[in-house]
């Protein structure tokens, strides 16, 4: 195997069909087809709709990625695919395609963990210094909200905490609906919040009371916050007062951002790790980045944020993780793995051949 393996990654864990091609740590293509528009009318990702869209998008996306990278399938050293976590039916489309492709071109297949892929996205940023270990990673999207302790990308990732109910991105979508804003909620809440006062309403910070912190120091909960916003809106309506959408949006966003950043920086402090990596689609939220950067600086924590196109779900991060696994001497996966919707983050690679 060459020092910099040429890998094609397939990612279908949620509503993005991602095909990425990397040569080691060099990004050659990050092709994404999203079915987001098809989900908009339902106010959230519909698994069956996502799975149907993946099947349609896979082949054209692979063709487009090969074109952009200027390579042929025969040139590849390996194929990589997300085994989990994610939506089972959506993951299975990618797994089926990856196996068909790998057998067809007779190349090794690496089945990898989606969440660890989000961390691997960072190594594709050629302009920044290499990722230093250990690092705390905060991954926030419509599908997950996870706080990780990364000691080594390919061998040692630990889950510190995750959401007990809704993912942060889901909370944005649900609150957007309460405020009669369209899907996806993140950018809409951001827009509505622009002229709002983030301190107008003190919404609850989930799992942040002393009693909760004992057991759930690094876990998140957003359902109570969502209910609090719903109550607020209903009370306005009952009182015949116009809902102050800007203030509600800004205050809600502040509560989400506050709890995310507070817990991430607590982990940095508790574990003595002065590095924080942000990933996942919700990182697109400008306020989250601002608050994270400002408060991290005060705490003496360095923050890394990959470009947004690598923060949202994508195949390049899956290819990048596999390339790192290959470079560290890991054997390919067997062909016998499946989709694992709840794959734990400790399983960085699935079904490594013995």
């Amino acid at each position: 195997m060459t020092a910099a393996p040429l890998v094609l990654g397939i990612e279908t864990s949620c509503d993005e069909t991602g095909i990425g091609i990397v040569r080691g740590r060099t990004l050659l293509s990050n092709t994404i087809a999203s079915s987001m528009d098809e989900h908009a009318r339902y106010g959230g990702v519909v698994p069956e709709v996502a799975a149907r869209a993946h099947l349609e998008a896979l082949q054209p996306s692979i063709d487009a990625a090969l074109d952009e990278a200027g390579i042929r399938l025969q040139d590849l050293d390996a194929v990589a695919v997300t085994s989990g976590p994610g939506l089972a039916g959506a993951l299975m489309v990618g797994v089926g395609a990856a196996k068909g492709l790998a057998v067809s071109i007779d190349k090794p297949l690496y089945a990898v963990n989606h969440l660890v892929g989000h961390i691997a996205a960072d190594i594709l940023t050629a302009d920044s210094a290499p990722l230093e270990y250990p690092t705390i990673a905060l991954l926030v999207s419509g599908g997950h909200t996870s706080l990780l302790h990364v000691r080594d990308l390919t061998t040692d990732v630990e889950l510190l905490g995750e959401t007990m109910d809704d993912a942060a991105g889901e909370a944005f979508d649900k609150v957007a609906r309460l405020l009669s804003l369209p899907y996806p909620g993140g950018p809409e809440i951001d827009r509505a919040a622009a002229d709002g006062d983030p301190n107008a309403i003190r919404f609850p910070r989930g799992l942040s009371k002393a009693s909760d912190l004992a057991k759930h120091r690094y876990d998140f909960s957003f359902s109570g916050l969502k209910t609090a916003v719903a109550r607020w809106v209903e009370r306005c309506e009952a009182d015949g007062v116009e809902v102050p959408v800007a203030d509600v949006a800004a205050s809600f966003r502040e509560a989400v951002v506050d709890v995310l950043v507070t817990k991430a920086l607590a982990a940095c402090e508790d574990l003595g790790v002065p590095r924080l990596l942000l990933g996942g689609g919700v990182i697109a939220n400008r306020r989250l980045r601002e608050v994270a950067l400002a408060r991290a600086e005060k705490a003496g924590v360095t923050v890394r944020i990959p470009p947004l196109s690598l923060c949202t779900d994508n195949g390049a991060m899956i290819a990048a993780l596999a390339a790192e696994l290959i470079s560290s001497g890991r054997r390919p996966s067997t062909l016998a793995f499946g989709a694992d919707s709840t794959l734990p983050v400790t399983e960085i690679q699935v079904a490594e051949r013995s």
Partner: protein
Amino acid sequence: MILAVDTSLGTAVALIDADGALRAEAATADPLGHAEVIGDLLADVLKGAGAGEITHVVSGMGPGPFTGLRIGIAAARAFALGRGIPVVPVPSHLAAALSVSADGPFAIVTDARRREVAVTVFDGTDAAGIPTVVADTVLVPAVEADAHLGGIRRIDVSELSGADLARVAARALAAGRVLADDEPLYLRHPDVVLPGAPKRVGS
């Protein structure tokens, strides 16, 4: 050689020669676990096939439970992409009908989950040797299937032959016929309702 992949019931993979002779086949009857087995079944069939070039990949388009069905279609398309060869979509019930020797109409009946069955009625074969569909595939409640068929011979099928699927495709190719479009035979709409007004939480 023609490779066929079908995951509409169990998982079936087969390779035949252009004249229909079987080269290799591998299958599991398990109506679940398609994602787990599809890669090894493909590899086994390639290994068992001997020398020769694969010219087409046949994809069984259902009817079948969608989650499993899609895995085979995705694998078939990706395999074809890897070899730079075309995909030939074929309705899966045609494979089951191919091996039926019957006078008069008969129905292929497969489980569609949720107490429904998928039913396609055939009668004889056409000039190309392809079973003739006389009533398109429909879903009917399992308990009403007999009434629906009104005496037409009913053949319940729980496993499909990948080789027969490939043979149907070989005949279609020889006759220049297209048997299905690229869309899987989705007989149900996605299980989803448009959201109404947000639920009240009270205060």
